[in-house]
């Protein structure tokens, strides 16, 4: 899969791909083909699409537990991504990472990370190396509103600002850290955290791919030119559950009216209206075909051999003692 261009059609293709990927993945959770469930990205597609459309292939991203959208938008193969979610040997991570750890280092995808706020400092280190080597790549740290209360992320912002690193801190404010609202969790403001470190920070409509792209381009241009990090807060809404366990667990923290009104502005619809009917239908058909092939590829792929459960534990190939005896 090649990363979509930063055109209206390209942006639509990305948000539509992510939407259909997530819908098919939820079906595979229900059928038992994906174990452990997923954190659906549905509703937040404009953020990944807009930011990644502003990047070059050699730029880098780090992602979160809700990471499928970022990984796909940076160009990961939907078939191998789905194979990873279904724990197959053909997956991006050979079935060793799953939904929360999808990575493709050849595409600058330095991994989704399952600890909230953990990726910011990793991103800063990667950005520093790029700068040290004379490159002008930028590195993006995606995180949610929950991460803005993690000390290590704030430490990472300080480092990035101090050393003028080409980092984009992209906060997807979907209103909830699992079930806790931003109002109940965040003192001050999210952009205020950037301002405290002298980092240019803006809040944008995270439901519109074009708007996100515009903000991301400005930040990317500044970072490439040596202007240091930026923080973009994207106001968005999670259409589905925090995690698919909610589908059965019946946890209630958003009432139906709120979910209904939150879903009224749909990034796929917003971007879709910018295409002609013919363009949209052509993209939709292409995505359906891509996803049919991806599902077939994933489900037809072999499971990894349990004898190799601890392969790759050490990069040097060192073997650990087995648990069952000497």
């Amino acid at each position, binding site marked *: 899969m090649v990363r979509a261009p930063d055109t209206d059609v390209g942006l639509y293709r990305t948000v539509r791909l992510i939407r259909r990927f997530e819908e098919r993945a939820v079906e595979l959770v229900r059928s038992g083909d994906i174990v452990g469930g997923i954190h659906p990205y549905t509703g937040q597609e404009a953020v990944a699409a807009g930011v990644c459309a502003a990047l070059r292939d050699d730029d*880098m991203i780090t992602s979160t537990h809700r990471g499928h959208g970022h990984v796909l938008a940076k160009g990961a193969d939907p078939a191998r991504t789905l194979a990873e979610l279904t724990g197959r040997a053909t*997956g*991006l*991570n*050979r*079935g*060793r*990472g799953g939904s929360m*750890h999808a*990575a*493709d*280092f050849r595409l600058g995808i*330095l*991994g989704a*990370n399952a*600890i909230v706020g*953990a990726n*910011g*400092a*990793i*991103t*800063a*280190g*990667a*950005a*520093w*190396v*790029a700068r*040290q080597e004379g490159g002008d790549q930028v*590195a993006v740290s995606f995180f949610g509103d929950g991460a803005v209360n993690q*000390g*290590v992320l704030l*430490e*990472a912002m*300080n*480092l990035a600002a*101090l050393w003028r690193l080409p980092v984009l801190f992209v906060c997807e404010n979907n209103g909830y850290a699992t079930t806790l609202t931003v109002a109940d969790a965040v003192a001050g403001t999210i952009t205020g955290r950037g301002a405290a470190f002298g980092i240019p920070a803006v809040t944008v409509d995270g439901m519109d791919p074009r708007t996100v792209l515009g903000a991301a381009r400005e930040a990317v241009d500044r970072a490439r030119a040596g202007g240091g990090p930026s923080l973009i807060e994207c106001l968005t809404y999670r259409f589905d559950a925090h995690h698919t366990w909610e589908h059965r667990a019946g946890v209630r923290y958003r009432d139906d009216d709120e979910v209904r009104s939150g879903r009224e502005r749909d990034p796929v619809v917003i971007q879709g209206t910018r295409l002609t009917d013919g363009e949209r239908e052509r993209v939709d058909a292409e995505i359906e075909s891509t996803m049919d092939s991806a599902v077939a590829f994933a489900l037809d792929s072999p499971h990894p051999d349990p004898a190799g459960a*601890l*392969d*790759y*534990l*050490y*990069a*040097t190939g*060192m073997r*650990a003692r087995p648990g069952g*005896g*000497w």
Partner: protein
Amino acid sequence: MPWLSYQKALNRALADELARDPAVFVLGEDVRVAVSNVTAGLFKRFGPDRVLDAPLSEQAFTSFATGAALTGRRPVVEFQIPSLLYLVFEQIANQAHKFSLMTGGQARVPVTYLVPGSGSRTGWAGQHSDHPYALFAHAGVKTVVPATPEDAYGLLTTAIRDDDPVVVFAPAAALGVRVDIDYDELGPVPLGVGRVHREGGDVTVVAIGHLVHDALAVAEELSGDVSVEVFDPRTAYPFDWDGLAASVARTGRLVVFDDSNRMCGIAAEVIATAAERLDLLAPPARVTRPDGAVVPFALGLDHAVQPDRGRLTTAIQKVLKY
């Protein structure tokens, strides 16, 4: 031949690796002026792009090193205080250590975490005196605890060149140890290969880090009555099980001398493995810190929780009664 101190050996290993490999850089607190001494002269020689002073943000600079390692560098992160490793346990055990497997072998994280002054420094009290090498061994992070200057040089060199994260504990009580050595003899020491410092036939004392020197002193004191073999694993993880087996095959008796807390310490693992695999003539013994030790401040109290020569002597005498 010139004298080489343990501390100077660490400094020399850093300088040699910085000179040898442009991917190596040093990151930590007060490393430019070398408050801990192990980075002395490096800033002047290698400059600000290779020797980075970080703000007091241990968690961020530890993961910063992970990000740099993922993109081709070989960072050495210095921690002035061993307990800081608790603060960055997530960044080491849950991030750096897990990238290789979680990415299906796409990523490697060749970071070295150097603690020059681990364990008790006498008088540094509860939050500056821990020796948590067993914690990292338990998590599966490669962990080395050199006892001598030449091993400090060799193991730090190997740690920097290793493609996985490695924690290097340089015990405070060993930093002043000096050897008379030809510098040309210094070279990398492989992980997981122990060293018999003194051969003996009656009992194997497995001693770790600075305790190797105490074990050698006790072995000498007792030499009229008992022939003590002193086995230094040098790396807590991977552990040299074959070296241990070979030593115990010669002696049949085992005492482990370990500056870990007793519960789930390295001594516990050594004795459990010996019980599973080795033929012992007598029940083994271990001399460790107490369970869950918090090192108290007052000198007598600090000493009371350290494994010491007296306790080792008692343990050796006990296992020899069988």
